[in-house]
């Protein structure tokens, strides 16, 4: 966006302020007059929705922190104090817990939108990387946040994940002890997790500002993948995008309210209503649903270190995406083969999530006994995880690089508002 700012302060006060700190000008240029592609569909409302989610989590988190006690002896009881005695405490707690799930639902949709429409491709690579950084910070924040109620799942989930670092040779044990602050997950671990859980969201907010800045420098992508060429292709952000984002947020809030008021524990685990007991491990240690695909990848590989590297590698693939995809065409609207592989990728992610919730040795098809391969029966979730993990990595490391070179994309329209391909534009 290299256009000249059209902001004109109208009152004495706004002129005075503009000469000293042009913040109103910045707001006007970024969110009022900002030229937005006219053909954005509802998948583009999730950026605004994510900002809403971050705001909700920060505000509910700050008020919850007024009542929470970060001590192994008192944490669980303080959360129940919030639920039972603090005015509207139950509402704040359920908003925060389910808000985290909503945050991840929105971020996954937002990321998948980026993959489908090629929003990570030049010149938006830094935008994509910043987004990945936000995702990473979100995962760290959510992981530490889940530990804070100090339930059985909180505690033992923390044990499993922090123990992963011991897989690294030579330095592994030292790193793990440094993380714990003790000889196991214990009081010091909880205290530092509380401190960092409070800190990280503000780092996320900072990276979000960079993310929006990077976005405004290069401009939004759009469903055609073709950059706006003239004023006919864009509309001012306010009121066009503002009102559409508001509607998107409102529908999102309906889903959020359904969870909070009618099924507040549906995405959680019953075991986390049992106070943490280091001596008793729950029958199934399961992370929160948004970590399940990575948990499945972790357990897919038989070796502990290989599993850890695979899990981190899966996230690294996302970071590397702009350089893995060789296609010149951005949007999968015009790449039917890529679209097919993408849909399979989507199903594979869901399968991985499903696998992450199961015991590795459980049977996929009940009752069917097949041959054991490398010690595990083929009809087991661990083998399904391996299959799905193989496709996950193949999608990034094989399909993306090769497909751009071999496929024959559909004709891409000249412009966003091109009258020649008017009907084709209306497709998904």
């Amino acid at each position: 966006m290299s256009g000249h700012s059209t902001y004109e302060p109208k009152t004495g006060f706004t002129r005075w302020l503009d000469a000293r700190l042009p913040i109103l000008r910045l707001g006007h240029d970024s969110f009022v007059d900002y030229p937005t592609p006219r053909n954005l569909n509802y998948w583009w409302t999730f950026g605004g929705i994510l900002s809403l989610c971050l705001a909700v989590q920060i505000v509910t988190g700050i008020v919850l922190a007024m009542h929470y006690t970060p001590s192994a002896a008192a944490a669980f009881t303080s959360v129940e104090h919030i639920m039972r005695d603090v005015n509207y405490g139950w509402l704040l707690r359920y908003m925060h817990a389910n808000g985290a799930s909503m945050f991840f639902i929105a971020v996954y949709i937002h990321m998948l939108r980026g993959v489908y429409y090629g929003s990570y491709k030049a010149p938006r690579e830094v935008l994509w990387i910043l987004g990945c950084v936000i995702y990473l910070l979100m995962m760290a924040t959510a992981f530490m946040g889940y530990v804070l109620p100090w339930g059985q799942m909180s505690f033992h989930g923390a044990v499993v994940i922090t123990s992963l670092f011991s897989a690294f040779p030579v330095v592994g044990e030292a790193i793990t002890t440094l993380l714990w602050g003790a000889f196991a997950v214990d009081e010091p671990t909880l205290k530092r997790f509380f401190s960092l859980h409070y800190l990280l969201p503000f780092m996320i907010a900072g990276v979000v500002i960079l993310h929006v800045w990077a976005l405004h420098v290069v401009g939004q992508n759009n469903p055609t993948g073709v950059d706006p060429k003239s004023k006919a292709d864009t509309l001012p952000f306010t009121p066009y995008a503002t009102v559409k984002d508001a509607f998107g947020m409102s529908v999102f809030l309906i889903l959020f309210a359904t969870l909070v008021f009618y099924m507040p524990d549906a995405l959680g685990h019953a075991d986390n209503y049992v106070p943490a007991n280091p001596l008793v491990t729950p029958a199934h240690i399961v992370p929160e649903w948004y970590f399940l695909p990575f948990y499945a990848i972790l357990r897919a590989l038989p070796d502990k270190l290989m599993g850890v590297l695979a899990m981190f590698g899966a996230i690294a693939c996302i970071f590397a995406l702009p350089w893995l995809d060789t296609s010149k065409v951005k949007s999968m609207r015009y790449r039917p083969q890529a679209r097919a592989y993408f849909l399979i990728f989507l199903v594979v992610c869901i399968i991985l999530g499903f696998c992450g919730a199961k015991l590795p040795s459980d049977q996929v098809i009940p009752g069917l006994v097949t041959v054991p391969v490398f010690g595990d029966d083929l009809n087991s979730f661990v083998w399904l995880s391996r299959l799905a993990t193989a496709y996950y990595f193949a999608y990034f490391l094989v399909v993306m690089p090769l497909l751009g070179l071999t496929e024959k994309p559909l004709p891409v329209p000249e412009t966003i508002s091109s009258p020649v391909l008017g009907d084709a534009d209306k497709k998904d």
Partner: protein
Amino acid sequence: MLRKVTLLAAALVLIGGPALASSKVKEPQDIAFSFEGPFGTFDQAQLQRGYKIYREVCSACHSMNLLAFRNLGDRGGPFYDPAYSPAHGKTSNDNPVVKALAAEAQVADIDPETGDAIKRPGTPADRFPAPFANDAAARASNGGALPPDLSLMAKAREGGPEYIASLLQGYLTPPAGLIVPAGQHYNASFPGGVSAGWDEKKQGHPPEGGLIAMAPPLADDKVSFDDGTKSTVRQQAQDVAAFLMWAAEPKLEERKQMGLSVMIFLILFSGLLYASYRRVWRHESH
């Protein structure tokens, strides 16, 4: 487009499903509790019966540390009386029924003059007294098994109140060939498994259920109900399960009622925003 959305929705439903327990149990009863559904409320008479069962049967071994006597008089609770609510300038601490129930209990305290540990009648502000001073004492009185605290039991187990009610009625005759070790009891609804008393290699597929340390706590007419309801094991099980659900989630009614207002507002608000959106965009193609 719709395909993708349905796929996502279906996936989320699947992922949300619980990991299956490795041992089979008898299918939990499907009980139509009054508090189920988006408009559910607690049945106060049922909660009163449930509290009586807890007080007379369960509290001998099970603590309920997160509940205070004043909670019994809170909105949605077993002894709620609107005359003792904030709307009338009073709280459940003033409710005479609550005060009487609290006074029935002996609560541990310290004599402020001598510093000795004493027991005194409870007040509404006091928590429910625990039957044992600590976990070690609890285990010693129960053959090494620790009776868990019941404050959150209805939320701490898969299946919630229906699981609890089924468990309490699940003490069926042990299947032939099952050896029940001393101090254990066969329960068709307990997911613990029967491996302690069943040799799978010799006897084949194990029966459903598990071995639980708790002896059958309920019996017909063990607790007499003040409202005249027939005191069968089934009735007791359902009533105490409902009470435990209230104990775990006392704000359930308030939550669902607020939910209704919020949903109505959000649906209307979304309608307004959609109309506003269409009005803004009415001349633009996109």
